[in-house]
């Protein structure tokens, strides 16, 4: 008599059903921390590896003039690991949803997004989905694709990445650093809290393995042309993970982007050369 379509129309009931599901507190889920006294908002998004502590040398330089938002992606840093969902975080869009969730939860608009490494592309995905939430993008050591592809130089061969994933499969990277804090926590000794807090680079090895796969096998080249916000590309001069060719490719393919080649080497200029990183961001925002 009537089709399934009719049933589907009654979204109202479906929404009610959805409303009954427990909503996880986003602030706790993503370990959101807010600092600073300014009006304008800067959100700092960490890359693959360690959590929000990676920004510790950077954000204090902006706290006088900006509202600073720090967070950990679900599965990284001190986020709520029980919220990890391998379907969601099997795609960079799942990570982009974390950024959008945090912005929605805090009612943020016209945000200056600062992303390191893979977070640069996560920021791109978030900004093209909800352009109204963002004002500009600052990308530190970004890459649109890590694996070489005919003319495109990403820096790695597919076998390199497969070897990386295999290495991570062996779980050695994380176990000692990941399990240690849990053991300490069980000991219930408050004097160890400092050390516990110092465990921010620990990652659940299984999650780290999937994050590595999603990161290093990602290909966001077709998203670059969709960027509508002004953007800054901070390119290190000798970065194994994001070589100079990648920075040039990004600058050529992201409309309204500016590339600065840093004196800093390696993949983490915000740790190795915080002064230069701060100076270039300040110059760009001025």
């Amino acid at each position, binding site marked *: *008599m*009537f089709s399934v*379509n*009719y*049933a*589907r*129309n*009654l979204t109202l*009931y*479906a*929404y009610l*059903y*959805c409303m009954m*599901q427990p909503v996880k507190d986003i602030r706790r889920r993503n370990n959101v921390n807010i600092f600073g006294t300014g009006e304008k908002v800067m959100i700092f998004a960490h890359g*693959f*590896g*360690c959590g929000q*502590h*990676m920004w*510790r040398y950077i954000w204090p330089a902006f706290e006088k003039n900006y509202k600073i938002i720090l967070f950990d992606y679900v599965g990284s840093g001190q986020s709520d690991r029980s919220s990890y*969902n391998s*379907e*969601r975080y099997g*795609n960079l*869009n*799942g990570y982009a*949803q974390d950024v959008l969730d945090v912005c929605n939860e805090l009612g943020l608009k016209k945000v200056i997004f600062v992303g390191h*490494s893979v977070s640069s592309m996560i920021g791109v*995905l978030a900004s*093209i*989905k909800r*352009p*109204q939430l963002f004002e500009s993008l600052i990308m530190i050591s970004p890459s649109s694709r890590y694996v070489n592809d005919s003319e495109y130089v990403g820096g*790695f061969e597919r076998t*390199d*990445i497969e*070897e*990386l994933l*295999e*290495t*991570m499969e*062996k779980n*050695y*990277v994380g*176990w*000692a*650093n990941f399990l*240690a804090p849990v053991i300490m926590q069980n000991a219930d000794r408050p004097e160890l809290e400092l050390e516990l807090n*110092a465990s*921010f*680079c620990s990652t659940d090895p299984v999650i780290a393995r999937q994050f590595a796969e999603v990161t*290093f096998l990602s290909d966001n080249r077709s998203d670059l042309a*969709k960027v509508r916000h002004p953007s800054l590309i901070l390119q290190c001069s000798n970065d*194994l*993970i994001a070589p100079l060719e990648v920075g040039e490719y990004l600058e050529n393919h992201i409309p309204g982007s500016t590339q600065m080649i840093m004196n800093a080497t*390696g*993949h*983490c200029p915000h*740790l*190795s050369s915080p002064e230069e990183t701060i100076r270039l961001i300040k110059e760009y925002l001025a």
Partner: protein
Amino acid sequence: MNQTDFILEHLPCGCIVFQADGVISYVNPALCEILGYNRDELPGVSIESLLTISSRIIYQTHLFPMLKLQGYANEVFLTLKTITGSPAPVIVSIKASRELDHVYYIGTLTTVREREKPEYEASLVSRKTGNESDALAKLGNEFELKQQQLDSKLSQLYELSEQYIQIGKVLTHDMQEPIRKITFYFNALLSENKEKGLSGDSRKISIINKSVTRLRKLTNALFDFVSLNSTNEAIISLNGEDLLREAELEVKQSLGINDFTIHISQVTKFFGKYEQIKRVFVELIKNSVQNRNPERPLIIKIHSIQIQSNTYQIHPDKYNYVDHIQLEFADNGIGFDGQFNSHIFNLSNKLNSNSDGVGMGLTLCKQIITQHNGYIRGSSNRGEGAIFTIVLPVTQAYQ
């Protein structure tokens, strides 16, 4: 040779000292043996040059940040590149030590070739398969439960939708006839009175007239809304630009208003029901026209991109990111108060009391978009124009 040197020289594991920039200043004989280098070849080179590419990634993303931020890293698994190019898996522990103004990183490296032996791998495999079968059984149970829940929800929805159709029929079709009669006899009465020279109370007459007109418009719109489901349209490949231009023409003809401009960016083809999607475009353009700012010519900018979005909209823990088309309608009209962002899609909630619409258009849009497994949202700040964003799957797999 003093005792400390003696111990270092004969240590049964590799020992390395490097500076903050990664340049090696010391290696012991055991490490040279693992790598196959002569002792004087290693000081001065970068620690990264001794690692395979995958281990260099781990060095950059984990080891270096850990050393920099917490001053140590324990039991990190790395693969060294020996002089012949063959890999040497090692477990590394490194600690930062300060001497005067200099930071040195002192590390020990132990080979783990033995642990690569089959029994170790076998234990990993059995642990993994054990976990997998547990996980499978759990999933099976969850699936069964979900199916039952889904079935029960569906039967409730069928029941509700039947009621909904019945109410819709009564509300719309059955009410149209009495309204038509009232209008007819009211007009007849008016003209009779005119002939007899009875003027009556013109204010009251005009109120009755207005109310009847509004009632008729409302029932028509409701009828429209309810009957949207009864048409059985096929899903075809749609050319968004053509459809938008047709919708523009339709609005211009039906409202008799021509003084607005629509800019359309390139739209990728997507699948949907032709008439229904056109209807959405018509309603959105109409909405902009009805809420235009009288002080400036109306401009609607339609921007389209392809994004990946989750196909699951209700289930909180399900994710499947597939290609969607995102269409953004931005106008320079009067906008609406941001607090009503979701309110605007509710049935007959009209924010602009000056427009002559009945407040059904956006509800209709939402219904159509939902049927197409997409979603729509609106955002605005009063005075700044409104932005409506539609996100639709490129293909309609579940219809």
